[in-house]
């Protein structure tokens, strides 16, 4: 069921994809559109916060550093 959801999401995106020209990327270049948010350090802090409470981790890049919080 999950793989079907992922596949259908992929197909939906494929149908709507436009070839964005280099000069049309002003919105995509905004600081608030960066993957992980506007600040990588606070993102790392958030991930440690969540990791200390949850039993799952990963999916946000491989560099995060360890902590003895779990």
């Amino acid at each position: 069921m999950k793989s079907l959801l992922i596949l259908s999401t992929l197909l939906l995106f494929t149908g709507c994809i436009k070839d964005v020209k280099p000069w049309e990327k002003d919105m995509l270049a905004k600081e608030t559109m960066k993957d992980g948010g506007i600040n990588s350090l606070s993102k790392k802090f958030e991930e440690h916060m969540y990791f200390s409470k949850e039993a799952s981790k990963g999916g946000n890049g491989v560099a995060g550093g360890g902590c003895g919080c779990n």
Partner: protein
Amino acid sequence: MQLKLSIATAVLLIGVSSQAEDYVSFQYLQYNENDNRTTVSAPSIMINKDFGVDYTLNASFVGDAVSGASPTYYDTASGASAFSRGTNLRASDVKYANVEYEDTRLAASLSLTSRFANRDELTIGLNRSSESDFYSSEVSAEYMHWLDDSKNQSISLGLSYQYNEILVTCVENSSCSVDVASGASQKMDANLINAQLSFSQNIDSRSYAKFALYTILEDGYLTNPYMNVVRNYNEILDTADIVAENRPDSKTAFGGSVKYANALTDTISLQLAYRYYSDDWGISSNTLDSDVYFQYNEDWIFKLGLRGYVQSEADFYSADKDYFTNETYA
């Protein structure tokens, strides 16, 4: 153990002094939970510097002051530290409650991004952190390759290796090899390898999506040395043992994530993320993150986030005092 609603608040203050793309960022992060559970105060500094158009160096230093109380089983009758353990205790004296702790964590990280003629990027990172009982060193590398000339599609491969050392006070039934009676400490270690493959696609001039698959392989000492479980419950004699918890010495996890970002207006952006996680301890989880950014003006950006997380328990999870375990792992 019953799930309790915990309320966490975090405040982030960022001051930035910058020229062009270079900046120095001073941050103060404050995290609080209800019931005096955990408080973290984390002042930090981050420096980002471009060298020409081909190199970017990023360095950060964080000092976390962590304090609070963590729930675990302990023996009320002993009157000793609540991390106390023992055998043949009165079962009715075993309680599950918060135990105070405090610690300081210092962490430093360094990363260098190199851009090639085709604008592919290679980022090498180093992380080092230390607490009174936990030391972590990490090296990482990530390569990003553009799949098209318009730079609307990219694929990334990341790999990191983490070496962790945990200081464990040796007690009976732990995996320490030193003299148990002396209560000495021993450094246990653990290794972690994280690999992630991602694909990013610009959908239109205002939005993009990112897909990732990852795996995390861990081995070594993966137990929390402060957590206790209750074993050998004898209903007739009303006795039980409080001993250190014991998690397996390896874990293999897989996960997948989907992210979507959309600049809804010139001042409001939305970022959504879903992650599925599963490991061989029997834990699987679903996470949904949503963040809304509001750019008030050139100097102020506000973020509002909502996160939903659901997970199953590990196969060897021991629920509460009414469930005494004699499983190998608990």
